[in-house]
């Protein structure tokens, strides 16, 4: 029976401290995976174009001739200083790739979450309320399909459906808009707003719809299932019956007790879905030729530029860890039980 509010800051601090070991494990895994991948990074990236001696020089310049543990420690040190290294094939600092392409991935994933919540929560709640009716069954099938369908399939289907209306699809999507926008934050939507260029804002938003919707559908499938199961559970919960017994009107019981309590786990699941969202985002970007980190990652992977892949994947891993922890913290603020 400890005091209620005093322990929240402690819980948050604990969670934040947890970022460090989680991050360490993840980046170590990234490091190991890329070392055990077949072939040597330099010849893979620029091999054929240079002779053996030049390749050795490149290796030495990149420090790849040193023992693994030295490379590992250096890598850790660099990550701590947010230095993600350089690409091998075109000598670009990874941080520039993140800066130039991160914004597009950010708006894509945020938009996708928005669609996923807008579709998933109402459908999940409705299906749960109308359990085993025709609408429940249809919604469940819809959820399974959107979750199971490959991204490029959903994307192409949507493009085919939408194309006759003249809605912008991927033909001009890279870069996102044909309008010139002064880079400030390098999140193009925000920059267009800062510049007050509303034609560009509208055009950018229009270009976001299809990719965000495609990725959103994948996540919506997760939310539909989760919310439906939760609402079925909370509708049976004892406090719901107790609220009815106090004469609380049915619509209040549903809204304040059943729905609200069913939505809390959604926050946790958002945290757990960050990784799925990231992998989905990579595929979505490829499908729509979207100028985000995912496209860059796939392109460098195709070029077998392991230094680039390591840098980008490390950054994505950091984002996944931090987001998950922040979602945990948010969850604790909303649900008092989590803190114990």
């Amino acid at each position: 029976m400890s005091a209620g509010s005093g322990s929240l800051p402690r819980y948050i601090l604990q969670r934040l401290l947890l970022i460090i070991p989680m991050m360490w494990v993840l980046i170590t895994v990234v490091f190991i995976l890329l070392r055990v991948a077949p072939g040597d990074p330099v010849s893979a990236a620029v091999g054929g174009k240079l002779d053996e001696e030049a390749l050795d020089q490149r290796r030495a310049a990149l420090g790849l001739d040193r023992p693994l543990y030295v490379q590992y420690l250096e890598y850790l040190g660099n990550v701590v200083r947010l230095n993600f290294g350089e690409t091998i094939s075109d000598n670009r600092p990874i941080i520039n790739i993140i800066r130039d392409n991160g914004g597009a991935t950010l708006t894509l994933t945020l938009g996708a979450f928005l669609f996923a919540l807008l579709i998933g929560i109402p459908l999940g709640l409705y299906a749960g309320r109308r359990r085993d009716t025709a609408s429940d069954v249809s919604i469940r099938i819809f959820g399974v399909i959107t979750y199971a369908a490959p991204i490029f399939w959903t994307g192409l289907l949507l493009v085919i459906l939408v194309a006759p209306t003249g809605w912008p699809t991927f033909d001009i999507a890279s870069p996102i808009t044909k309008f010139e926008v002064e880079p400030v934050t390098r999140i193009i939507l925000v920059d267009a707003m800062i510049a007050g260029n509303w034609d560009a804002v509208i055009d950018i938003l229009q270009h976001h719809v299809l990719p965000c919707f495609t990725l959103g559908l994948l996540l919506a499938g997760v939310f539909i299932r989760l919310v439906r199961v939760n609402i079925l559970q909370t509708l049976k919960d004892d406090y719901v019956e107790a609220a009815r017994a106090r004469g609380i009107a049915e619509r209040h019981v549903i809204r304040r007790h059943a729905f609200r309590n069913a939505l809390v786990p959604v926050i946790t699941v958002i945290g757990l879905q960050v990784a799925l969202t990231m992998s989905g985002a990579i595929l979505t970007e490829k499908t729509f030729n979207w100028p985000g980190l995912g496209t860059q990652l796939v392109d460098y992977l195709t070029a077998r530029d392991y230094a680039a892949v390591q840098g980008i994947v490390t950054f994505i891993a950091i984002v996944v860890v931090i987001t998950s922890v922040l979602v945990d913290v948010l969850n604790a603020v909303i649900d008092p039980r989590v803190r114990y």
Partner: protein
Amino acid sequence: MTEMTDRSASTATSGGPVIDARDLRIWYGTDRGPVKAVDGVSFTLRKGEILGLVGESGCGKSTLGRGLLGLLPEGAKMDGQLRFNGEDLLALPKKQMFAKRGAELGMIFQEPLTRLNPLMRISEHFEETLKAHEKRIGKAEIERRSMEVLRLMGIPPTRFRSYPHEFSGGMRQRLMIALSLVLRPSFVVADEPTTALDVLVEAQIIRILHDLRREFDTSLLLITHNLGIIAEACDRVAVMYAGEVVEIGDARDVFAEPQHPYTRELLRSTISLASTGLNFIPGAPPDLVDPPPGCHFHPRCPDAMNVCATTHPIQREMKNGSRTQCWAADLRNGYAQDLTPEQTTPLSREEISVADEA
């Protein structure tokens, strides 16, 4: 009889009973057919009176308690007659039933740990309840009235804005009681309110419930399978078996001189086990989809006669004032004198003794 009238005269004011149930029937639709969980139950409850409802698990106590408040799950059906302060509850539109629930009809449940919404502060539970019934009530008034009942239940006012998980089981049950009393309902069903709690807390809760009539003049239906609680807290007792009330009367009379063999066996097993609530009446309660013919208790009854297996006994008033449905009790009390010797021969039953051996 005289004692009973004396005792209730002090609490009952003018007018009829608070609850008047006649021939209530409640059944659940299942794949196997209707489960007759309450099968022709009649009783009355006066103002400020505490009626104990006792019986083995699964005999229909909770179903009856919920039915009185119209809180049955989907798929359950109810008929008969149910009057609350003279008003026919079964004819009442759903919306008016909601308005009565909480305000005039209260319910206290068995599991206090799960009955409060974990995401809502105690204050929000009170606010929600009061606002549901008094739309215009202000913040100050909500707080004043909540604090008043909380104080009565021994909950410190400083805990008003705490969350449910910050309280112990016993405190949560007192919170639940406070919450169901904040609108001063005239009738409350308490469904095994102490089963989930330890013995010390149990005694405390029972004392609180017992004091309710002094504070609020509340009529209480106290459901329990613990006869000790009935002896301690109740004016009258109803004994339920297989969906029926087989004996109902003044608690002292029923305890001193049980008329129904089931009541007698229940008391005997309770005494032998020092009131743990478990009992060892041989055999199992019947299937409520297809109960035995005649008296539902006959397969387990030590006094069973031939007539018991064929003909359902009728509830009659016994010499001590209780109402009982039992052929053997009838004979002792001067009823059913036209039964033939063949009918009153003890029932022979091979199957039962075989089952007992096994």
